[in-house]
Each structure stands twice: as structure tokens, then as C-alpha cells.
């Protein structure tokens, strides 16, 4: 039914970002590989640019040098003046916005894949920033089906307060790829291969779309971000408990009211006090201790995506 088909221009310009966090090694390694030899990622009629977004952080093997690049793409930062005086990552954000944006404009790249790792046991996760982006929803549906029976879940972060300004947000269709668990600074072959495969499926989707394939309406199960849960802390801001052993590594599994959530250093259990079952993720991510986050809660939702196909000239 053509009336209900959403039309998008062919996605001609695609970027693959690695090293947005300099110590998340799968993306750093894949992008460096593809910058040397791009045969694996080439697709007909498509310009695919692999790119290291935070080279200084990559060189030092740290998450960031001055400030988190993946929070830096706010309008305020993108229009800030100050040149060299600005924090390194703000300068980088402006540069990336010039090269791949400008954010929000017709000239912006069609799709950006931003490659990340997490210390959390999240498996393969695709991160969606808008529930209304039919193109992205259809892509994620395609990837999930192509990757099956292996699991690839979708995290939707549309929360007005918890949503943040990512590197990929410069593009018309931003796609986050988060694979874990992997320690910072470590490259694990299973994690590396998984990321390589889901990216391959993503590029196949774009290729098929550009060739004129119509994707019928579909539904996609997503986990929608609800709330950030911090560690219990003392008056000086020091953590006084750890993620409970029953919750550790249980990303995406139901957390019911009354379930163990934290364990104090002297062995006491702190229970989840919410009023309904939630699905926690980003459990015990190393980088989030400083962001006051032990885990985020999500709820399961099924999103409907309209049929999509390429605009015809």
C-alpha cells in the first residue's frame, strides 16, 4: 500500500566512527583496519567513510582527554567560539560537525554507525535515538533477523532528560552499536567478530535499500530507557555499595520489586524499591561511575515501523 510507505532518499553517504571513546577497542581496531583496506566495507553506489573520531584519546587509550566526546555535540558546543581554548573534544565535535554535518541540515551524512564497547554484559546492542525513524527501525529489524539466532537487542534512548548529544547525532540516521562485555583497553576476538558481523548486515541493508528494495511494515521490540539508578553514596560522594551479585551480568533480565540490587561492603543487601518490573542494562559500566550511574532501567515496548522504500526521481 504505497500511501503508507515512508520514502527516503537513497543513503549515499555513510560513516563508520571508531574511537569515540579511545579505550573501546573493537571500533578503534575495525576502523583502523578499514582505513588501511576498505575492501570489506565497500558497497556499490555508496560512499563509506571509516573515521577515528577521537585520535588523542585513542593514542592515550583513555575514554576522553578533556570531556566525553559522546556528550559533546550539544548546540551550545557546536556553536561555541574560542578555537584552541576550547576543550579538545569540543573542538573535535565542531570539526566532526563540519565534516559529517552540519547536524540537522540537508548536507549531513545519511547514516553514521558509532562503534562502542561496554564492560556490561549487554551482548550486541543497537542504540536508537528516535522511535519515529522508520529507516532506522527497518534497518534494526533487518540486522536482528540476519544475526539470529544470535541475539541483537535494541535500546531506545528518547528520554528527554537522559538523552545525550552523541557523535552520531550529526547524521540524519544515527545508529549506535554497543557490544560487551569487554574491558576497556582490551580487544577480545569474539566481541570484535560480532561487531564486524552486525556492521556487515547493516551495510547490506543500506545496499538493498539503495537498489530499490521495498521493506514491508514491521514491528521491532525495543527496550526504552526509563531511569538512571546511581550507587548508594555517603555524604562525601563515595560509593557505599556494589551492584549485587544477583544483578551483576544480568542485563536485559527482569528486575522485580524486592529483588537484590546492591550489596554493601559489609555484606548487606539493598533491594529494588520500584513499583513494577523493569529491565536493567548498562549494569556496572566502568565509565559510568563518574556519571552517577550503576545501571539504567528500561521497559519493553514494541514499535511499529511503516514500510519504506527509496524515493523515485
Amino acid at each position, binding site marked *: 500500500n504505497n500511501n503508507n510507505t515512508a520514502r527516503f532518499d537513497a543513503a549515499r553517504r555513510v560513516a563508520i566512527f571508531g574511537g569515540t571513546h579511545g579505550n573501546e577497542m573493537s571500533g578503534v581496531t575495525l576502523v583502523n583496519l578499514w582505513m588501511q583496506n576498505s575492501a570489506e566495507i565497500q558497497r556499490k553506489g555508496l560512499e563509506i567513510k571509516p573515521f577515528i573520531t577521537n585520535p588523542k584519546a585513542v593514542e592515550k587509550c583513555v575514554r576522553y582527554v578533556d570531556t566525553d566526546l559522546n556528550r559533546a555535540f550539544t548546540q551550545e558546543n557546536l556553536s561555541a567560539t574560542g578555537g584552541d581554548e576550547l576543550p579538545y573534544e569540543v573542538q573535535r565535535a565542531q570539526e566532526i560537525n563540519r565534516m559529517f554535518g552540519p547536524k540537522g541540515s540537508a548536507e549531513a551524512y545519511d547514516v553514521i554507525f558509532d562503534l562502542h564497547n561496554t564492560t556490561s554484559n549487554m551482548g550486541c546492542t543497537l542504540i536508537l535515538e528516535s522511535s519515529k525513524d522508520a529507516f532506522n527501525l527497518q534497518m534494526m529489524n533487518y540486522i536482528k533477523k540476519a544475526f539470529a539466532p544470535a541475539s541483537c537487542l535494541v535500546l531506545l534512548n528518547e528520554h528527554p532528560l537522559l538523552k545525550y548529544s552523541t557523535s552520531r547525532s550529526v547524521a540524519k540516521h544515527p545508529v549506535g552499536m554497543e557490544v560487551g562485555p569487554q574491558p576497556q583497553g582490551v580487544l577480545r*576476538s569474539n566481541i570484535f567478530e560480532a561487531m564486524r558481523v552486525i556492521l556487515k548486515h547493516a551495510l547490506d541493508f543500506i545496499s538493498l535499500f539503495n537498489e530499490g528494495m521495498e521493506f514491508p511494515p514491521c514491528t521491532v521490540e525495543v527496550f526504552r530507557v526509563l531511569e538512571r539508578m546511581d550507587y548508594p553514596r555517603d555524604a562525601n560522594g563515595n560509593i557505599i555499595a556494589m551492584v549485587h*551479585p544477583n544483578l551483576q551480568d544480568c542485563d536485559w533480565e527482569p528486575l522485580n520489586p524486592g529483588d537484590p540490587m546492591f550489596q554493601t561492603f559489609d555484606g548487606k543487601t539493598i533491594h529494588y524499591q520500584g513499583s513494577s518490573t523493569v529491565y536493567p542494562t548498562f549494569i*556496572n559500566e566502568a565509565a559510568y561511575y563518574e556519571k552517577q550511574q550503576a545501571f539504567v532501567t528500561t521497559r519493553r515496548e514494541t514499535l511499529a515501523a511503516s514500510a519504506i522504500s527509496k524515493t523515485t526521481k
Partner: protein
Amino acid sequence: MERTSVPPIHNVAICGGTHGNELTGVYIVREMQKQKMEKAGSVSVTTVETNPRAVAAGRRYTEMDLNRCFTDVLLSSPITESTLYEVRRAQELNAQLGPKGSAEAVDLLIDLHNTTSNMGLCLILRPNRNAILSVIHKILYFKNNLSSVPVRAIQLDIPSSKAYSLESVGKHGFAIEVGPQPNGVLRADIFNVVKEALDLTLQWLQKFSSGHSFEGGTVEAYTFVKSVDYPRDSAGKATAVIHQNLQDNDFKLLRSGDPIFQTFSGDILKYEGEDLYPFFVNECAYYEKKIAFHLAQRKTYSFPPISVKND
């Protein structure tokens, strides 16, 4: 075997945060300080956060790896304005817990570490007749009581003057190394295991000090033989990742022909050499030290019954 007398242990130092992003030790030490753990029976207990700057920065070290600063040369080097923070800190710790090699040094120094490798709980020590005996007893004690995690002993054959790590400051010392845990992450299950291991150690010390006799027996220990680096290109960049058959298989015997690396272009590289046991497989901090994994021989040692020597 004949019963052996071992000199008493009057004091023990428990150290954490030697690498600032290995969090178990940091929080164990803080909790012990909060609980005012200063005595275990007649044994006095000191707790020290050894590299507070690195802990505050969430980094392994600020200028130099503190756990390489305890050689005789570095401990006696003159301090100038340009002396690296960790070298200074090592000399402070040597004054507080040593001096290394002297009669004033703490009797036992335990340094708490984490690794990203799947090593379970390891006691790392340099062989020294009495140290082996008492640590071996501890291992046996742990094994009987710590059922949730594999417990192993690793020996590094380095003479005292060249010994570079913190525990060499004590008359006896060992590191407790537990993994896998990512840098910057605090896992409750690992915290609980290390806390239990320390409780058992202090219990053992109290029993030992009060004259208890410990039975002899046998124990396996792994002795470091050599390390293996990643294959690299002409620019020095690693061209491969640890093969999935080796990843997480620390202490599983490696034989000639077993896959060890997978190159980024998909080729499999195989191990060639004598049968040895890999450990510290894919330890994050060792990338810059050009180590993909270490290899060890495994030997069984028998040891006699021991009790404390009465003065």
C-alpha cells in the same frame, strides 16, 4: 617429612590501589580502615592505599608503574624535582613498610591486584624458603575454604635486589591477583572472594601465632618461564588478536599446534614450543609491555608440617 619451625609473624600490611584502576584492593582497604581492622589476635594489621593519585585519576599509574619501582636501584635513587611521582611514592612506602631487607620491615606484606585475565585467584610470590612454606599452607587453607573460585600459586624467580614489586618490601610477601575484572569496575563477587581470602589469611596467622601445627602436604605452583608478544607489523602495531581457543583459558595446557592468535585478515597462528601453561592471557595493562600472555611450567612441591618457632 620432618616438622619445620618458622619465625613468628607479628605484623602484616594489606595494600590496595597499587594500580589505581584495580578497584577490589582500593575498596577492601577502605572498608578495613572504616571497620578499624588493626589487630587480628596478636598480629597487628596495617592497611595502606598505596597509589592515591592513580586511584583518584582512575588510572593504573600517573607517571610510572608503581609496582615496578621497588628495585634496590630505584629505592636508593636520589630524589630531585624531576623524580617521577611513583618513584617518590615507592621510597615513602619503603620507609613506612620496610626498609626492604632490614629487620624493621613488616613481617608479611599482601598486595591486592585485579587482572582482566580469567585467572581466578592467584597468589604471586618469589620463592624464599619460609615464604613458600607459609604461603603454601595458606593456599591449602584457602582451597579448603574458598570453593567458589580456583586458587593457584605463581612463582616468579627473581633475586631480592632485582625484585621490583611492592610485596618484596616485606620480610615475606605475596600478591593476591584476582580476575577477570575490567579496570575501573568493582564486582561484588570478586570483592567477596578477596575479603574471604583475607579473613582466612588473618585466621591462619592467628592460629599460627598461637602455636597451632599445620600438616604438611603437596601443592602445585606455576613458575614463570617466558612471555609471548603479539605479532606486529613494521610500525610496531599488533596485527592479531588472542585466538578464541586461548582467550579465557588461562592455566589450560598449551601444546604445539594449538591456535594462539588470529590475525585481522583471518589467519590462525599456532603455538610452537614445549608444553606450558598460559596465564595473564589478554591482560589489558600488558599491551604496552608487549606481552600477550605469559607461559609457565607447573610443578608439584611437597612441604613439611610447620609451626611457629619459639624464641
